[in-house]
C-alpha cells in the first residue's frame, strides 16, 4: 500500500494531479483552504499504486508519496 499526503495549505486546486492519476482516485475536497482554494485529496488511498504521477505534475509541491 502507498501513502500520499497533501500539504493542503499550499494546494491551489488546479486538478493537474486529478488529471494524471492512473487510478482516478484524486478529487478536490469540499472545504476551502485559507487562500480560498478547494484542496485536492485522495478519495481511496488503498487503490493508490504510489506511482507519484500526482507529485510529479503538481506545480506547487503539495504532494508527498510513500510506498
Amino acid at each position, binding site marked *: 500500500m*502507498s*501513502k500520499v499526503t497533501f500539504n493542503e*495549505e*499550499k494546494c*491551489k*486546486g*488546479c*486538478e*493537474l494531479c486529478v*488529471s*494524471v492519476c492512473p487510478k482516478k482516485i484524486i478529487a478536490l475536497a469540499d472545504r476551502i483552504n485559507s487562500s480560498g*482554494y478547494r484542496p485536492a485529496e485522495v478519495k481511496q488511498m488503498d487503490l493508490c499504486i*504510489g506511482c*507519484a*504521477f500526482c*507529485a*510529479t*505534475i*503538481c*506545480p*506547487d*509541491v503539495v*504532494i*508527498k*508519496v*510513500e*510506498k
Partner: protein
Amino acid sequence: MAVVFDKTKGLTDKAFHYCPGCTHGIAHRLVAEAMEELGVLEKAIGVAPVGCAVFAYEYFNCDMQEASHGRAPAVATGIKRVLPDNIVFTYQGDGDLASIGTAEIIHAAARGENITVIFINNTTYGMTGGQMAPTTLVGQVTTTSPNGRDPMLAGYPIKMSEMLATIEGAAYIERVSLHDIKHIKHAKKSIKKAFENQINKKGFSLIEVLSTCPTNWGVSPKDAMLWLEKNMIPNFPLGVKKEVE
C-alpha cells in the same frame, strides 16, 4: 514505508505565488531537484528574471540575485567571471529572454559563458497580463494581439533554441516540455545535464522549457497542458538542437 517523492531541499518552504496549475512551479522543482542531486546548492548562485518568476529568489534555496528585465545573462556573466567555480544559472521567461534580453542571451552564448540557462517559453508575458511575446503563435490572441498574432504585422514566432544552436560558443541547447509526466521526467534529465555541463566546464547550456500560462491563455490548467501539446510542440519541435561532446 519508503519515501517515493518529497519536496526537494533545493526549494525553500515559501509557497509559490504562481497561478493554479502554472507549470512555472514544475520547472522550479526540476531545477531545484537537479541542483540538490548534483550537490551544488551550496555553491549555486541563481539569477531571477523579471517576469512571473521574479520571486524565484524566494524559492530557490541558494544565493540569488534578482536581475533587471532581460539582463539575467549579463548579471550571470558578472557573477561567473568573479566566481568561476561556483554554479551560476538564470531562469528566464520568453519576454525576458527572447524579447528585451535577446542581445544578452546571444552574447552570453557567443562568449561560451559557462552558465546554465532555464528558458520558460509560455508564448506570452504572464506577469504583465498576457501580452504578445516573440514566441506567441500565429493567430494567438493576447492583449496586444487582440485579433490574433498577424504575421504581416508582428512577424512569426522566434525559435530561440534553433537560433542559438547556430552559435559556436553554445555547448548544449535542448527544447523540452512539461505537458505530461513523460516529458516532465525527460525535462528533468535535460536540466540536470545542463548543470552537469557547467560543472564540467563545457560552456553555455540552455534548456528551453515549453510551459503553460492557464491564466492568460484563459483555459483550465488541464486544458493548458493539452493546448501546449497540440499547438506549441508543432511550432517548437522538441529535442536537442546542439550538443558539443
